[in-house]
C-alpha cells in the first residue's frame, strides 16, 4: 500500500478537511464499525478504525467454561456461518482427544459446512450488489439463505446461532426431511445463482463500480495477513481445506478459484466460484454417504460424547458419563494445540492450551475478520467514500468476529 498516494482535490478553495464519523452505526456499513475519516470533498485523506464496540470477552469467558459450553460462544463469532465455527471448535477438541471420526460424520459435517459457506458468500455478494445499487440481485438470491437455515433447523433445531453438533459428532442423525431439503436446495440454487451471475457478471454499471477498485497485490495481502477469498482474489491459492485438510476434505474433488488483481470484482468472482465448488462438494458428499453404513452420526467415545437422554434416565453408566461431561470432568491430555478451519472469510484458528482442568487454560481465536480488517483504513486513503463503502462490503467483515 502506497501511503503517499496523491490526493486529488476538487479544486475546492477551502483548504480545510472535513472530519466524518462513519459509524459506529452507519446504515451503509452493515454492522458496528467506526471509522473516523478525514475527507477532502469526496476523497478520503486518512482514516482511523475503532473496533471493539461489541467486544464480549469470549476468551476470558472460555477460561471459565467446560468444553461443551464454549460451542455457543463460537456461534457468535462469525454469526453468518456459525456451523463452521462450531465444528471447528469440536474438531479442535477431537484433535486434542485424538478421536478417530467415522467417515460418515465427516461427510455430514462437510455438507453442513459447505452450506454455511454458501450462506456466508450469499450475504457478502448480494450486499456488494446492493451497495452498488442493484437491489434486485439481493432479493433474488437472499431467499436461499433462508432455505439453508431451514436445513440447519431440521438438523439441529436452530437457525442463526446453531450450536450444531457435539464433540464427537452430531446430536442426532439427519432425518429424511433434511435430506429432501438438501436435494431440493441443490436443484433450485444453481438456477438462481446462474441468474444472479447473469445479472451482475457482465453488468456495465457493476463492473465500472468494482473493477480496479481497491486493488491489492499478493505481497501486500500476505504482509497484512489476509486469508480466505480476499487472499485468493489476489492470486494466492491458499485454502486451509487443501493445505491442512480436516474432516476428510482430502476425499473431495474441488477447485480453489483464484483471482488476479485482488480488486472488488475479483473478490466477487472468487466468492461466486466458491459457491459453485461448494455445491460440487455437497453433491460428492451425498454420493459418498450412500456407500457408508447408515445410522452412524457420532464417534464411539462414551467418555466424551453426551449420551442420549433416554439412557441418562435409565442407565447408571450413561448418567455418570453425562454428569462428568457436563461438569467438565473429562480426561483430556495436558497439551496445546492449534487447529484451523477455512471459515467463510478466512482461516479461523483455535489455539487451545489444556492443563487438565475442567476448562481450557487458555483459548485464543484467530479471527480472520479481525486480521483482514486492519488493512481497511490504510487502503481507503485516496479512495472515494462510495468506493470505500463497497470495499468494506466486499471484505465481508462480520462485527461479531471482529470484536470477539
Amino acid at each position, binding site marked *: 500500500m502506497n501511503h503517499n498516494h496523491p490526493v486529488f482535490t476538487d479544486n475546492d478553495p477551502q483548504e480545510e478537511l472535513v472530519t466524518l464519523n462513519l459509524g459506529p452505526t452507519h446504515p451503509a456499513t452493515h454492522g458496528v464499525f467506526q471509522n473516523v475519516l478525514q475527507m477532502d470533498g469526496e476523497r478520503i485523506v486518512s482514516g482511523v478504525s475503532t473496533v471493539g464496540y461489541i467486544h464480549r470477552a469470549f476468551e476470558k469467558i472460555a477460561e471459565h*467454561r467446560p468444553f461443551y459450553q464454549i460451542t455457543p460462544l463460537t456461534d457468535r463469532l462469525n454469526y453468518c456461518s456459525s456451523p463452521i465455527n462450531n465444528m471447528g471448535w469440536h474438531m479442535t477438541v477431537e484433535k486434542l482427544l485424538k478421536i478417530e471420526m467415522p467417515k460418515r460424520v465427516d461427510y455430514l459435517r462437510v455438507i453442513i459446512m459447505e452450506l454455511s459457506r454458501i450462506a456466508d458468500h450469499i450475504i457478502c455478494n448480494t450486499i456488494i450488489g446492493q451497495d452498488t445499487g442493484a437491489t434486485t440481485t439481493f432479493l433474488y438470491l437472499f431467499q436461499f439463505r433462508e432455505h439453508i437455515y431451514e436445513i440447519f433447523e431440521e438438523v439441529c433445531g436452530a437457525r442463526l446461532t446453531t450450536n450444531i453438533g457435539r464433540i464427537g459428532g452430531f446430536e442426532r442423525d439427519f432425518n429424511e426431511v433434511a435430506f429432501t431439503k438438501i436435494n431440493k436446495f441443490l436443484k433450485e440454487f444453481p438456477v438462481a445463482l446462474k441468474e444472479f451471475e447473469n445479472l451482475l457478471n457482465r453488468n456495465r454499471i457493476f463492473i465500472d463500480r468494482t473493477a480496479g477498485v481497491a486493488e491489492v497485490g499478493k505481497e501486500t495481502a500476505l504482509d497484512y495477513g489476509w486469508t480466505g477469498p480476499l487472499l485468493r482474489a489476489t492470486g494466492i491459492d491458499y485454502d486451509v481445506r487443501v493445505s*491442512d485438510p480436516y474432516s476428510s476434505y482430502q476425499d473431495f474433488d474441488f477447485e480453489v478459484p483464484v483471482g488476479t488483481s485482488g480488486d472488488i470484482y475479483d473478490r466477487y468472482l472468487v466468492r461466486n466460484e466458491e459457491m459453485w465448488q461448494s455445491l460440487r462438494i455437497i453433491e460428492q458428499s451425498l454420493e459418498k454417504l450412500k456407500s457408508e453404513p447408515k445410522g452412524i452420526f457420532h464417534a464411539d467415545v462414551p467418555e466424551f460424547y453426551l449420551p442420549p437422554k433416554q439412557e441418562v434416565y435409565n442407565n447408571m453408566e450413561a448418567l455418570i458419563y453425562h454428569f462428568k461431561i457436563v461438569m467438565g470432568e473429562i480426561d483430556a491430555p495436558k497439551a496445546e494445540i492449534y487447529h484451523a478451519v477455512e471459515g467463510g472469510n478466512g482461516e479461523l484458528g483455535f489455539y487451545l492450551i489444556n492443563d487438565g482442568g475442567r476448562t481450557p487454560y487458555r483459548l485464543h481465536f484467530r479471527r480472520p475478520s479481525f486480521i483482514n480488517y486492519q488493512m481497511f483504513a490504510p487502503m481507503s486513503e485516496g479512495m472515494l467514500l462510495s468506493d470505500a463503502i463497497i470495499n468494506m462490503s466486499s471484505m465481508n467483515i462480520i462485527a461479531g468476529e471482529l470484536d470477539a
Partner: protein
Amino acid sequence: MEQTTLNNDIHVKLVEKFGEKVTAVSEPYGLLTFVTYTDVIHNVLLHLKNELNFNFLTDITAVHYPEKDHGIAVVYHLNNMVERVRIRVKVFIAEKHPTIPTATTIWKAANWMERETYDFFGVKFEGHPDLRRILNMDDLGVHPMLKQYPLEDPNRVDKKDEFFGR
C-alpha cells in the same frame, strides 16, 4: 511422517544459526514448537521469514502463567504456505517488565495482533507504531486476561467462579 523429517530439518537449521537460544523444542500434535528469548526474537522471526520461508504470520497472542518467574508467554504462529508447515515460537517474559521487540517491521499484520496482546496482557511491544488498547475501553486500567482478574464481580454471592470450573 514426512512432517517430522521436515520439522527436524527446520530444527537443525535453527540450532545451527541460533545455537543455545533455541530451547525446549517439542512437537505437540506435529507442530514444531520452541522457546527463544527477547534479545534474539526479532532475528529469529526475520530468519524464519527470509531463509526458512515462513512467509505468513498467522497469529500473535500471549498466555499468562502466574506461578512462573517469566510469567507471560508471547506466542507466535507462523505458516510456510509453500511447504505447508506451521511453526510456533514462544518467548517467556517477566510479568513486571513485559517488553518485547515488535514484529510490525517484519509483518504489517502484527500491528493489531500486538495491540490486542497489549490490551489483554499488558505486553509492551517496543517499536510498535501505535500501541493503544484495541478492544477494551481506553480507561479500563487493567489488562483483563491476566489470571488475577476474575471473570465475575467477586462480591456477587450467586455467581462464583468455582461453580464454573476455575
